């Protein structure tokens, strides 16, 4: 009788310990697993957002190119776009550089802290090209520069 009571007490302690260990293990696993999942989803979301913003910027550049395709150069051409200042919680910057092949330009969007990037190529025909630049993401202006006969990307 006494030993049985003693065993029961031991059993409770063991059960308690087991519950604690199992709960801790499960919780830790969930936290680690969720953290990894959240991290992956965050990267995917950032990549998709960079891609979308980049495509919208390229489409805007192409529209500016079509608006410049008149017999006379435009007297004024300014297109202002409201792009998000952050993608998936990260700041990003936009850079435009000449394409390595020599024709066209490459627009690259890259987050500041996680090195996620998206690049896309753009060709313009009615003007001399797109000026090389690097600006912070956010409100962006595509403008025709009649002095240089090129499209200029600026942070507004």
């Amino acid at each position, binding site marked *: 009788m006494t030993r049985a009571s003693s065993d029961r007490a031991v059993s409770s302690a063991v059960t308690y310990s087991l519950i*604690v260990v199992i*709960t801790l293990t499960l*919780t830790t696993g*969930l936290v680690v697993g969720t953290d990894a999942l959240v991290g992956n989803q965050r990267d995917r*979301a950032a990549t998709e957002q960079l891609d979308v913003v980049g495509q919208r910027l390229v489409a805007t550049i192409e*529209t500016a190119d*079509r*608006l410049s395709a008149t017999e006379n150069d435009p007297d004024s051409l300014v*297109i*202002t776009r409201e792009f998000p200042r952050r993608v998936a919680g990260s700041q990003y910057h936009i850079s435009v550089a000449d394409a390595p092949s020599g024709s066209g330009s490459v627009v690259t969007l890259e987050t500041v802290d996680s090195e996620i990037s998206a690049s896309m190529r753009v060709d313009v025909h009615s003007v001399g090209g797109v000026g090389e630049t690097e600006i912070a993401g956010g409100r962006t202006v595509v403008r025709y520069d009649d002095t240089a006969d090129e499209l200029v990307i600026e942070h507004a």
Partner: protein
Amino acid sequence: MVARGPAGRGRPRDSRRQSRPQGTRGQFRLQGSRGQLLLAGAFVLAVGLISLTFVLNASVHTNTLAESETGAVRGGDAVTAREAARGDVGALLGTVNREHDSDYVQAFRDGLPALARGIRDHRAKRGRLVNATLPSSPFTNGTLVKQTAENGSSDYFAKRNTSTGSLIGNRTIMEGTRVRNATFVITNSSGSDSPFVIGFDPATSSRDAWELHVYNGSRGWTLEVFNGGSRVGGPCRPPEARDSVELNIAPATFGSDYCHALSQLNPGSPYNVTFGNGNESKGRFWMVAKDDITGFPSCPSPGNICQDDALYGVDVAFEYRSSTVDYETTLVVTPGEI
């Protein structure tokens, strides 16, 4: 046999009574700790799920933004508005050329404000400012050259020798210029051996000459396009047999059907316009040349090529403003220019 007295029974009972509350308190402590642990775990799990929801929602929001973007925000509406204005102004230009012999400039000046008001009102409903006005010196004068063959007696594309009366089939219609709205209605032509030839020869550059060969052969009316002596694309034929065929060069139609080979025509500028085998082909034509042309009698001159003053083109100051686009340019409107 052990006698159990109240005291003997009572002790274990007492001890149970004493231990039961202790055990109950211990269980409460155990259950309380376990509850706190479960609560903490649930909290962490909830935070993780909420973070996941935020990230997924951001992704969905991104896709929604990408799909909901309109051409107006991107500036595509400005292109549409500009081309619509160009088409409307071109139509007005054609109308005043057709309906006003001498006062076409004033007719155009009178017509443009009403046209611009229509364009402005149409776009204003969507929150955009669009305007079309005339700058200083907007007009480019030209010459309408045509052969209408209204009497139907001498409607050859050839030139008649004034002394002998014979027909000269190969002739230059105009030199060193550019034309628009060139349209031919060929009513009679020989076979493929001697087609009616419309030539565009570069006047100054070293580009190859373009030739349009039109004939009524065994398979009906046929158009063949040549550049530098080589045929461009395949021949074009109207779908059904007909007595005459209309060749409209700028929209690249032959017998009202689109002709891909004709759309390739690109003679540069300036060029000479020539006719070949005009003594074997009959019909009508009209075109507006960019410069002042001389050498033809004034219209009307039925059955002969005649000329008249006309508007070749007009410059229009175009303005478009929306919440995202500021755009100003000067349009040079020359509808149907080759």
